């Protein structure tokens, strides 16, 4: 007995000391994320949580892994993209990036990112639960580059009180999302209703339809509403007729006095505050704006005050919305081990329970099917309704290295016609010339 005790003690001591001797592996993982306001902090915090889990997994296997996560959230996009591209050029890119999916194409070409599918088992939990279309958006040329970090949609909002005052019954307002979806209520109706609101003095002139005040993916939705196509068979497409109708819509809105001619450039803070306090009649935004309205802008009774729908169809198009998933990307230039650990962290961070924290806190939509079975997500009325009403109709922008040039040119054309510097026709002709000039054969013009 004593002998046995002695033996086992020696064994235990040896085990403990050998465990102590097992060298500690210390890994530093840096993660940078763009467009991250305080509501979106789980974009980087999820990596922290994942690091804890991965350390425990390693400990269970008998390895001592110490991960230090360096987080750098940036509130804006311009600064973030400049920082990333310049840091990468200097060889200082972080291990993990959280950015828009449209960066995959140029950054893959630049050799700045490496495909995540080289590191993770695509059939393992939770990747096998991520929506297939989101994985597609995170791929380029059939290769999965990143994992989606969140999904969203961009709804149209209506201030219910004013809708009532221009003659809508409560039942009409409730039926509105369906009417938009069926194409019965169109962008032409939006202008009519906005005009009524202005004419009746419910809102000030220029506040009938109060769109996003700066450049963003949102504006592609209107192009789509008028039947525009962004990309076909891997080639960018400019549909001149659709583009012109889309420009014309905003010009009409300005001429009708429902949208301000000088609206572009209004600070975001002002825009959020105004739409959340009923200064505007109809506007559009993103699902995550809900968090802003409710948390920061003090809109207590969101569902009582605001109705939401898809972006209505215009002439020749369909109602739609746009999802612009952010993705976790792995950068090149680090040692294999660190990148493999970064990949594991991204995988774990996509765990439905962890992702649900981000989805609910920031009012984004979930990336995995199982999130609907997690109480915090399912109990949230906004994420539930928005997922059902919007996500099935969501399009995404193409992953195409030349899309940025197209986008910049599209925006300057819109800006020029909106502010009356050019007629829509002129703006589209200039846009065509600009794109032919800059992109050549990479864009189809029709």
């Amino acid at each position: 007995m004593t002998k046995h005790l002695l033996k086992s003690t020696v064994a235990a001591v040896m085990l403990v000391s050998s465990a102590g001797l097992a060298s500690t592996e210390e890994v530093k993982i840096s993660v940078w994320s763009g467009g991250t306001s305080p509501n979106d902090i789980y974009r980087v915090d999820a990596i922290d949580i994942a690091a804890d889990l991965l350390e425990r997994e390693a400990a269970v296997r008998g390895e001592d892994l110490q991960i230090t996560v360096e987080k750098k959230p940036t509130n804006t996009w311009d600064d973030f993209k400049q920082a990333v591209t310049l840091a990468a050029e200097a060889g200082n890119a972080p291990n993990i990036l959280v950015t828009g999916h449209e960066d995959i194409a140029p950054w893959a070409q630049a050799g700045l990112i490496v495909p995540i599918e080289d590191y993770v088992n695509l059939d393992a939990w939770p990747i096998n639960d991520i929506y297939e279309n989101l994985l597609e958006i995170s791929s380029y040329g059939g290769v999965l580059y990143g994992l989606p970090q969140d999904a969203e949609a961009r709804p149209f909002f209506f201030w219910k009180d004013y809708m009532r005052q221009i003659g809508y019954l409560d039942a009409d307002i409730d039926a509105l999302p369906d009417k938009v979806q069926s194409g019965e209520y169109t962008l032409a109706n939006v202008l009519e209703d906005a005009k009524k609101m202005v004419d009746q003095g419910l809102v000030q002139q220029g506040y009938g339809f109060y769109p996003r005040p700066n450049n963003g993916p949102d504006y592609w939705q209107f192009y789509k509403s008028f039947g525009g196509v962004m990309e076909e068979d891997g080639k960018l497409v400019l549909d001149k007729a659709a583009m012109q109708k889309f420009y014309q819509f905003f010009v009409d809105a300005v001429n009708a006095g429902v949208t301000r001619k000088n609206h572009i450039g209004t600070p975001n803070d002002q825009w959020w505050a105004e739409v959340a306090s009923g200064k505007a009649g109809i506007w559009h935004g993103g699902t995550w704006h809900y968090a802003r309205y409710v948390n920061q802008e003090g809109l207590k009774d969101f569902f009582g005050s605001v109705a939401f729908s898809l972006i209505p169809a215009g002439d020749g198009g369909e109602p739609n919305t746009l999802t612009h998933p952010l993705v976790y990307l792995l950068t090149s230039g680090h040692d294999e081990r660190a990148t493999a650990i970064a990949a594991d962290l991204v995988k774990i961070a996509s765990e439905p329970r962890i992702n649900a924290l981000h989805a609910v806190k920031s009012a984004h939509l979930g990336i995995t099917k199982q999130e609907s079975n997690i109480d915090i997500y399912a109990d949230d009325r906004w994420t539930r309704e928005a997922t059902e009403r919007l996500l099935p109709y969501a399009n995404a922008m193409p992953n195409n290295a030349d899309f940025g040039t197209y986008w910049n040119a599209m925006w300057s054309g819109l800006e020029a016609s909106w502010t009356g510097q050019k007629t829509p026709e002129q703006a589209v002709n200039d846009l065509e010339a600009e794109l032919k000039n800059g992109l050549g054969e990479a864009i189809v013009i029709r």
Partner: protein
Amino acid sequence: MSASRDIVESGPARIGTRAAPARPRFAWLNSSKGLGLVLIMPALLLVIAFFLAPVILTGVFAFTNMSTATGITGGAYQISPGALRVLTDRYGMGELAERLGQPTYVVDEQGLAALAEMEIDQDIIDGLKRRLGETFSSRRDFERVIRDLPTRPNTRTVKRISDAFSRSLANARFASAGALMSAAEAIDPELTDDEKAALREATYTGWSWTTDNFRRLITSPQTMRILFNTIFFVAATLLIFNTGFAMLLAIATHYIPDRPAGIFRIIWFLPRISPAVIYVLLWKWLAWDTGFLSAFLDNFGIRPRNWMLDSAFNAWVFVILINGFVGASMGMLIFASAIKAIPQSLFHAASVDGAYRWQQIRHIILPHLKWPILFVTCYQTLSLLTSIEQTLLSTDGGPGGATEIWSLAIYHTALNNYAGNLQYGYGAAMALVLVVIGIVLSLLYLRLFNYRALIIKPRIEH
């Protein structure tokens, strides 16, 4: 340098072996030319680092198609979807593109041999052998098969195995053309020379030399507009504020007592010494639709609006005011000190002769200010041409590109792209145009004001 050499040669004889080399080595410092060179060296290095190098780099970048996607340091060869499209569209090699670019995993002898070399478990190799000849079009499907083998390998090994069976180059990246060619030949041993050349060309991700930027610049409808905006901006700000208003301030403060004049000048200095961000923010508070101007005019029944971006005219007024108030102070300071340097006796004599103030200004002050006016005009033209921060922060080129000036357009092209693909090459071409305009203008000014006549030749050291 010949002078310094003479000194070395005729220097005193060596005293000790240790001290000897020191003297001849630094003796050239005894010449004022040599010493001057040393003294100017720090400045010269700064000029090279912060002026010449950027200009040369801009010149080099301008003749490339550099962007984030191409990188600056060099490229690789990647079978990306874009490259495949070029291969199909430009070279009509759609079939080759299909063969190389479609992800394909084939269980073949070659792969099995590779596994054996990698010392993969024999059970796994045997398991895969049973599926010999099967083809998979997605990595996921093939890895599923590997994982279903009786001995399930870990993820890292699965990746290595699937790599060994990959028979396409979808998104594959090669550091050199040679590596690309040998990989392509492994898939298709019968590549023709034409196909190889096309492949090399289409898949190269790095930048290449091109004059396309300038062609694009000349044919773009935007260019004329931005150029006109820039000329208008520089001319208006320069005439109204940087020289005109500055002169007015200088002359006005010349005729008022010293102490109030000093206070007055300090007030006009505030825009220059306050940080640009805060300075512009104050203008925004003044001009925005929730700002001071709107709130004040609301009392008179004028609807609040964003005064700064209300119309192109308003935007220009603000841009010129914002930039002009900053620029005026410098002209004011230089003109005021130049007026101070005019001998007082001239003014007294003029007063005795009964000259009016205007006549004093016309016949005494202005003729003495020729050189300062040249300097301020020259300096401010160049500084306005490249000025960006106030306009960026206030209108950002709006509304609708109405106040988009050249420097801002460079920034928007080279450092601002919503989809993460910054256009360095095109931006540099635009910047180069600015550099050329700047140099041409400087030469023109020097000629116009007859620079030679303005400087007195030194009377020593011919």
